[in-house]
């Protein structure tokens, strides 16, 4: 490719600067979680693990973490269980009206999360009072946000599984459910795992919808962190953030071990193959 060196190095410089820009908030948070200064002064005034001790001693954070874990697992399971058959239908059944259903299904993607949160708040208050400030309400909200993503990933994966496999299983005497479970589902393991992890992480980080429908005793961890940061700029949050980064990376690292063929890169649609 005939191209000037100047252009090449200019592009390379922009790339490196942007990488620094993208990593800088992560690095500063990790560094400051060990900074002895109460006010996160720069340069750091010394090394301490005190902020980590404070995170573990903070009852609001402990309760929030436990709440987030439960909500994350429940809404991920719900979305996978309900989303898989929908994705199967979208990939395999051709029928008029299905396009309209698809549009309806993906509508939450274009609605601002704050608007979804407030709309659910009104719905709960007016029609379903017990759901307001309940786990079930938060699980429903997160499922609404995640279903379109999960269905999109799974529909694409169903499209890659040849329907012949299933028909062969049926011809050999399997019931429709058996054929699905034995012939199709194993080929979907990767996509299910990726969308499951994606859904869990989305739920674990959700503030903008959740904050409208929680009450203090069901506050999720990110909501608790948001409310904390509104009040105090305390390095306790740096320690908590660092712990969460480690936690997320542990969750993410499960993927490459279980998924073969680099399905994650395919999911990200980078398409450099």
């Amino acid at each position: 490719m005939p191209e000037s060196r100047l252009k090449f190095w200019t592009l390379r410089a922009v790339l490196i600067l942007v990488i620094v820009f993208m990593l800088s908030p992560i690095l500063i948070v990790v560094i400051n979680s060990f900074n002895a200064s109460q006010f996160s002064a720069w340069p750091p005034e010394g090394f301490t693990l005190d902020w980590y001790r404070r995170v573990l001693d903070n009852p609001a954070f402990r309760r929030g973490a436990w709440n987030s874990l439960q909500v994350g697992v429940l809404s991920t399971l719900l979305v996978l269980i309900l989303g898989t058959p929908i994705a199967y239908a979208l990939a395999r059944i051709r029928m008029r009206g299905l396009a309209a259903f698809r549009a309806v299904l993906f509508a939450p993607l274009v609605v601002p999360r704050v608007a979804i949160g407030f709309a659910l708040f009104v719905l709960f208050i007016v029609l379903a009072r017990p759901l307001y400030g309940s786990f079930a309400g938060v699980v429903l909200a997160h499922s609404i946000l995640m279903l379109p993503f999960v269905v999109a990933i799974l529909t694409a994966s169903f499209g890659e599984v040849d329907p012949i496999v299933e028909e062969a299983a049926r011809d050999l005497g399997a019931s429709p459910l058996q054929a699905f479970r034995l012939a199709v589902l194993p080929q979907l393991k990767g996509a299910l795992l990726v969308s499951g992890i994606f859904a869990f992480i989305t739920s674990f980080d959700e503030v903008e919808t959740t904050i409208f429908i929680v009450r203090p005793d069901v506050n999720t961890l990110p909501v608790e962190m948001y409310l904390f940061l509104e009040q105090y700029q305390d390095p306790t949050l740096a320690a908590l953030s660092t712990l969460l980064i480690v936690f997320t990376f542990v969750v993410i690292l499960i993927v490459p071990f279980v998924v073969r063929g680099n399905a994650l890169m395919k999911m990200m649609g980078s398409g450099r193959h």
Partner: protein
Amino acid sequence: MSGVAASSLVAPGRTLPRWVRLALLIGPGFFLIVLPFFGAMVMLGTYSLNLRDANGMGMGLSLWMDFASDGFNWSVLWNSVRIAAISTLIAVALAYPVAAALMRVKSRAFLAFGYVALFSPLLMSMVSRAYGWLLLLSDNGFVNQTLGMLFGIDPIRLVFNETGVIIAIVHVVLPYAVLPILNNMTQVPSVYREAALDLGASGWTVFRRVTLPLTLPGVIVAAEIIFALSASAFVTPSLLGGGRVLTLSQLVYENIGMIEWGMAAVQAIVLLVTALAVLFVLERVNRATHAARES
């Protein structure tokens, strides 16, 4: 997708009718998740039509009149749109050369590092990222202390104003801008550029007349996604703005606390319509440029 209608290949009588299967597959998810969402959106619309004084009795446009006649609402809406537009411009202007640079990276290790570095912030909690920017940009934070040490200048105000909000929003949306642009670039064969160069066009002319028009669809998709994300952002402007940079999403949240639910409904709908309107306009631009290219 290679989705062939499986049912047409299967012998009749072995499966349930198509619509029954469809209902069984879609029904549970529809009733448990999709329907509540639409119920909520309908409630939102209804609430915005409540009459302010009638305690929910009767319908009317009085809340919408109140919204439209209050200059404060317009200035906040303008804040949201302006911040989103500036963030979108900056993010696209950064994402385009980043995608072009990624296309040219030969080393697999550096490429992998680049991807991880660009996309790993997506795995970090939104609140943590906002906190990271507060630490970096505050008066005694890393940026101002470093500038002070190097040039001996006084701290520049970078947080609790629009600058800080825009920096942090660009950081949040940048990965979403890089992906569609990169995707588009990989689909444009390099022969077009090479042909233009062979015919004697300068590098700038090739970019302006060949590369940019061919990669414009990716840019527009990127702009659509990130405008919608930045216009409706809540956590980032609220924390980086420290209450001094008001956006529409923050007004919705504040009005809930003040039991102004009807007004919050109006504001939430305005927020939604704004995001959709920009999507619509950009989609029209996309079609127009498509048509222009094909003619």
